[in-house]
């Protein structure tokens, strides 16, 4: 409903529930603020945003007063202006203004800005009396309580968004402070439960909370903002790199983006590795024994020739002896080129570039049953749902910003959380119902839940009737999965099963978030059973309901879309399909191998057995740190090319190491767990003598005698839009305005955030 009111003589229409401040802003009327933050609940603390409302004999704060029909507001009477100035002057009395000289926040400080705009006198009678506790030791955040203006934002962001409740207000007039811990017992941030998501630093209007790392690296106004996409996990948060003189000073959440707009510790502080020190700065060629890690520096020319020669030798003998592996952090363009290079230039289908095996199987099962190889809905659905079931994911730890969203929904929307896991997770505390399942028994649990739904008459029959087929067979098949039997199979109690199943079935909307643990064993079967359950509950095909896959790395979805797995070609075409192969071959003007390629584990086995002799390894795809047994396979290779930032444990076996570029140095697109394609901009140029993956692949291709002619990553994106039907309408120009959800088949298409079941009949799968 709209409300009409008058602000400074202008007629204004505002949404019911909007504040006076918001209504004024929308009319371009400026009201100064200090504690207000657009993405937090209004605080009303600072009193700077005062306005006059007719009929009320005291000024009111515009930031937290809802508009009302017929209200008459004046924003800048002389009295109001004087009051604002007085209040700000009072505040300045408690602020060590002389420190502005050396304050990190100088130039981007809300207090400085307001004081300047109002022309406040800076007082020399500084009245802060008590000794302020010194900042605590921690690796990331500098706290300078003396500069704190007690706006309350950090307290609020920590209780609303991170929900760690680290900060509290220690009351007591001028002695009041924002403290970590309790007022009675202030603690260090860490002891008070801080997870260093950094969102308090993001919202602090002054220099009371700043990043340790950025100290003395640059003044705020010197920092150039470059938009980017966080590369640490599949949520794909929008971030802003702050760069000075080609150096990264800090990373901020991108508040303007349509994502949740918050950040986590990995995104905020986990960029050490970009900065160099340990990075490989120039191509290296092995000198001593394999695995010894002794290398000599080489020019790019020499290194590329060396690699081309090595790979050619094996290819000419038998391309099946070659394999390509890429990491889940590469862009769509890199993934695309890598598998193109693999199939078209090296002639091998032995490849796995950037996908996650279990997630890929799950996506293919989704494609098989629902026609979409990924999530059916977006993270925004979490805000609109009554029940969330997390299965096999410790999101709060691994995909924290998505985890925060779940917590937000619980606290503000009353959403219920069911947490299915085999071990203890961070989610346990947040959940209303924890189902601890025996490892590998997800399938039985899901079947048991659906059977319960059917037996208890909770089935969404209208939905099943309208959108599905094959229900009667399924019903028969599930009969045996009684709660008692499921308890035996999974360890989940009958009552818990019943509660979980009824919550999913009875909620108007329910969302399932399926993580790595869910696809660890039997990914295909688990996925099909999950789809069955959600169809039975009528929970697929609209906003607020559906299935979301919480993929482990940043571009797992994009890599699969690009055909980064042996049996697939870009756009979910199949290698085994003659027509599909033909189509791609023509588009690329390259011969494509038709034989069945191997996936990661297969490649490892074949390498150990000497079947595979040459490997081109891009990024830390093998995670040898985590899986040291894979080193053996690397040791058995005749020829190993590693493209990396560092000499990882696996890279020690390389014959050649090609120095790649970090995500901050790369330009391209990434596809997150929602199927949202987003544009990442390069904040830095490639470090020293390193090159971007895109350049290197092209260089290699040229050295192999098959030059690729892309002048920029943009041209690769353009090719992708021609080759991958789901990306048909995706271009950099369009992505500038925010991400697009595939399928986005053509230029004018708005993308598809929600899987829509219109007119489709989905078949229940028997598993």
């Amino acid at each position, binding site marked *: 409903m709209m409300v009409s009111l008058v602000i400074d003589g202008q007629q204004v229409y505002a949404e019911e529930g909007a504040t006076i401040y918001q209504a004024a802003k929308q009319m371009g009327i400026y009201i100064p603020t200090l504690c207000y933050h657009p993405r937090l*609940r209004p605080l009303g603390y600072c009193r700077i945003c005062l306005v006059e409302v007719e009929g009320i004999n*005291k000024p009111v704060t515009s930031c937290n007063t809802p508009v009302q029909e017929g209200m008459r507001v004046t924003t800048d009477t002389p009295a109001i202006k004087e009051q604002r100035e007085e209040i700000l002057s009072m505040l300045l009395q408690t602020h060590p203004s002389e420190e502005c000289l050396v304050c990190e926040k100088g130039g981007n400080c809300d207090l400085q800005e307001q004081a300047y705009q109002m022309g406040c006198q800076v007082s020399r009678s500084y009245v802060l009396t008590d000794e302020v506790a010194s900042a605590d030791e921690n690796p990331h955040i500098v706290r300078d309580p003396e500069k704190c203006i007690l706006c309350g934002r950090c307290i609020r962001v920590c209780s609303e968004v991170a929900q760690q409740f680290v900060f509290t*207000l220690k*009351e007591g*007039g001028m002695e009041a402070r924002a403290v970590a811990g309790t007022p009675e017992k202030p603690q260090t941030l860490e002891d008070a439960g801080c997870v260093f998501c950094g969102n308090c630093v993001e919202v602090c209007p002054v220099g009371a909370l700043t990043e340790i790392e950025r100290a003395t690296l640059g003044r705020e106004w010197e920092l150039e903002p470059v938009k980017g996409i966080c590369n640490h996990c599949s949520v794909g948060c929008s971030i802003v790199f702050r760069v000075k003189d080609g150096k990264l000073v800090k990373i901020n959440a991108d508040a303007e983006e349509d994502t949740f707009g918050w950040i986590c510790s990995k995104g905020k502080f986990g960029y050490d590795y970009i900065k160099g020190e340990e990075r490989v700065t120039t191509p290296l060629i092995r000198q001593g024994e394999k695995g010894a890690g002794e290398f000599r520096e080489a020019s790019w020319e020499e290194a590329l020739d060396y690699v081309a020669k090595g790979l050619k030798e094996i290819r000419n003998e038998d391309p099946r002896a070659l394999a390509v592996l890429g990491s889940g952090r590469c862009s769509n363009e890199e993934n695309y080129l890598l598998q193109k290079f693999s199939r078209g230039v090296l002639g091998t289908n032995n490849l796995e570039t950037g996908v996650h095996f279990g997630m890929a199987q799950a996506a293919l099962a989704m494609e098989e049953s629902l026609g979409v190889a990924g999530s059916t809905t977006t993270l925004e659905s979490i805000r609109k749902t009554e029940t969330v079931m997390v299965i096999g994911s410790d999101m709060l730890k691994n995909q924290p910003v998505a985890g925060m969203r779940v917590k937000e929904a619980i606290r503000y929307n009353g959403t219920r959380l069911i947490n299915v896991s085999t071990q203890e997770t961070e989610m346990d505390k947040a959940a209303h119902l924890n189902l601890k399942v025996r490892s590998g028994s997800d399938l039985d649990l899901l079947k048991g839940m659906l059977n319960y739904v059917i037996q208890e008459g909770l089935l969404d029959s209208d939905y099943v009737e309208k959108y599905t087929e094959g229900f009667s067979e399924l019903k028969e098949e599930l009969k045996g999965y009684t709660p008692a039997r499921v308890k035996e199979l999974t360890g989940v109690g009958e009552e818990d099963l019943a509660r979980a199943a009824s919550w999913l079935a009875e909620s108007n909307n329910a969302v399932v978030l399926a993580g790595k643990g869910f696809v660890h064993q039997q990914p295909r079967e688990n996925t099909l059973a999950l789809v069955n359950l959600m169809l039975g509950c009528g929970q697929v095909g609209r906003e607020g309901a559906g299935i979301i896959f919480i993929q482990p790395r940043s571009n797992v979805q994009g890599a699969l879309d690009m055909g980064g797995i042996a049996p697939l070609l870009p756009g979910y075409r199949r290698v085994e399909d003659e027509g599909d192969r033909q189509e791609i071959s023509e588009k690329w003007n390259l011969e494509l191998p038709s034989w069945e390629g191997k996936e990661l584990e297969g490649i490892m086995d074949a390498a150990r057995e000497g079947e595979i002799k040459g490997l081109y390894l891009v990024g830390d795809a093998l995670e040898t740190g985590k899986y040291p047994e894979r080193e053996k396979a690397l040791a058995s290779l005749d020829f190993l090319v590693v493209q990396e930032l560092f000499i990882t444990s696996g890279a020690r076996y390389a014959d050649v190491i090609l120095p790649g570029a970090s995500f901050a140095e790369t330009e391209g697109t990434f596809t997150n767990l929602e199927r949202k394609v987003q544009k990442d901009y390069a904040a830095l140029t490639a470090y020293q003598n390193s090159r971007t993956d895109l350049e290197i692949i092209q260089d290699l291709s040229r050295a192999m005698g098959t030059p690729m002619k892309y002048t920029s990553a943009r041209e690769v994106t353009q090719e992708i839009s021609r080759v991958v039907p789901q990306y048909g309408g995706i271009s950099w120009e369009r992505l500038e305005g925010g991400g697009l959800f595939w399928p986005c088949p053509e230029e004018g298409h708005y993308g598809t955030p929600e899987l829509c079941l219109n007119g489709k009949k989905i078949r229940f799968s028997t598993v």
Partner: protein
Amino acid sequence: MGKVVFSSWQRFIKDNRGDSSGKQVEASELNLPDSLGQEKLKAVIGWDGLVIMDPEVDVVKATKAYFEKVQEESCGRCIPCRVGTGMIARRLERIDRGEGTEDDLEAVKKWGNLVKDTSLCELGQTAPVPLLDALEHYSEEFASKVEGEKGKSSDQDYNFRSIMTAPCLHGCPAHVNIPHYVGCVKDSCFEDSLATIREKTMLAGVLGRVCVHPCEENCRRNQLDEPVSIRNVKRFVYDFETEGKKEDIVETPKDGEKVAVVGAGPAGLNAAYQLALKGHRVTIYEALPVGGGMLAVGIPSYRLPREVLNQEIELIKKLGVEIKYNQRIGKDITLDELKQNYKAVFIGAGMHESANMGVDGEDKGYRGFIPGVKYLRDLSLGNELDIGEKIAVVGGGNVAMDCARSAIRLGVKEVNLLYRRSREQMPAHEAEVMEAEEEGVRFHMLTNPTRIIEENGKVKAVECVRMELGEPDSSGRRRPVPVEGSEFELDVDTVIPAIGQVGEFEFVSETSGVKVSDRGRIEADPVTMETSAPGVFAGGDAVLGPSTVIEAVAAGYQAAKYMDQYLRGGKVTPDEEDLMEQIIDGLGAYDPQEIPEAPAGQKREKSELAEVQERIKGFDQVERGLSNSAALREAERCLRCYRLLLAVT
């Protein structure tokens, strides 16, 4: 009675200084006591002005002391109050020292107005009120200090005591810190909110459902639009923190004394909870097989699900309180034995017998004549109910509603409710009456039963007479008088009187020294809850007559406080807090004439009700409570009306 020298309380200036021509105001006209404990009350300074009772009082010093307290209590959220009152306090201190200047006086006045007009909450908005009054009406005193006069007195000559209150908080018999727990909800800290309530009582979930919320009648928003839905906010934080989670509590170390509590009703439970928090070893003796008193055997479960009650009782037990069920004092063990075996005893035995109607046949033991409280008790305990198909419930209060609405849920075909006055005069809550009507209870207003008609020892009908309203009685309500010749019979097979409860205090032996009044209530001090027998305390319905859960809770809290005092020092005297409360009682913390200067028209959020058709099928909870977003919006409506009072002695 002391004379008032000057008062600006309630914005009404009474100045009796100098000339004696004006009418002298007595302290009693402001309902102020003469003294605070043993000390003479010299002045009171607070949110609504200043009252000077001793002409010698140093007003500058008192105002300074007041501002120092304001600074301490200022929460620090908003700049004007956090910094402004601090700056004022500093300048006042300088002026009081005799080192102030004219500029300081100007500054203090200017800041005072700013703080008053722009602070976030009532504390800041009201703090300058007495200052500005003093500056105006005691300007010479300020002037002479500015001119360098050192002043006739020093800080040591006075005792300054202060107390924070709020209208709602004061209106709540248990003085639960409402602005704070509602504020915690604003701040998203639901856990802290619950903890704040639990400082006063464990029964947050219970009260969130059944409290009659006198706080809301005292909410300042009444004058603006509608009161804050305080009870529902309380219920929300309990529900949020409890749903699906295991709330836990750690046992407190017990270094105190052995204490016995009679009755596990809200009064007894809260006394036990508070005593356990203070480290005493408490044993509750409860006659029934369940805990909760009327919460368990009175209030029907569609209003108070037993899981909520039991969860909270469980937490009290976890704290280290022992509850012995099926132990009736006077039967299984005597009060004298308790007195011997324990260092102190609290009696919270409630009132569990139905009052007589004074109607022919009610004492004959006819089948089908079931006293209301017995009927509800049997229903709650799962005992067999001998209830028919057409029933008449007699009474117009909440208990009568509970009886009638329960009967509907039991599937009784025809539920009649007889009340001798008019509908408007029904003491039951309006919402209860409406819900009962929706559910199909047939109301017979201005109808009084006169005789129970039986057949073979079983109720067959009830004879009634029509009433009309006559002259007002002592309560101001018009008295119902029978209309002659209007008798009629109502065919019913069951009659349930629910016109009030009486206590059963035979166990209170002469030897115990505890007095029972002629009205059948245990006598106890209204503040300390001590009875005429040292070491024996009492509270709740047993002392007050049928009252409310929150009053019982308050009694338990007070009793525990003074039992602790007794156990530690052997004496029982009202403490400073309660003495200060008496001053506030006199002045009133809530002024229904005062209209807050704040935006009006923010609607009160309402709890959703289950559909009538669903409701009458069984005893499922009727009220759904507030949604999370509604609870937050409701909390935002709170004006945070903290106010500070300083007593000068």
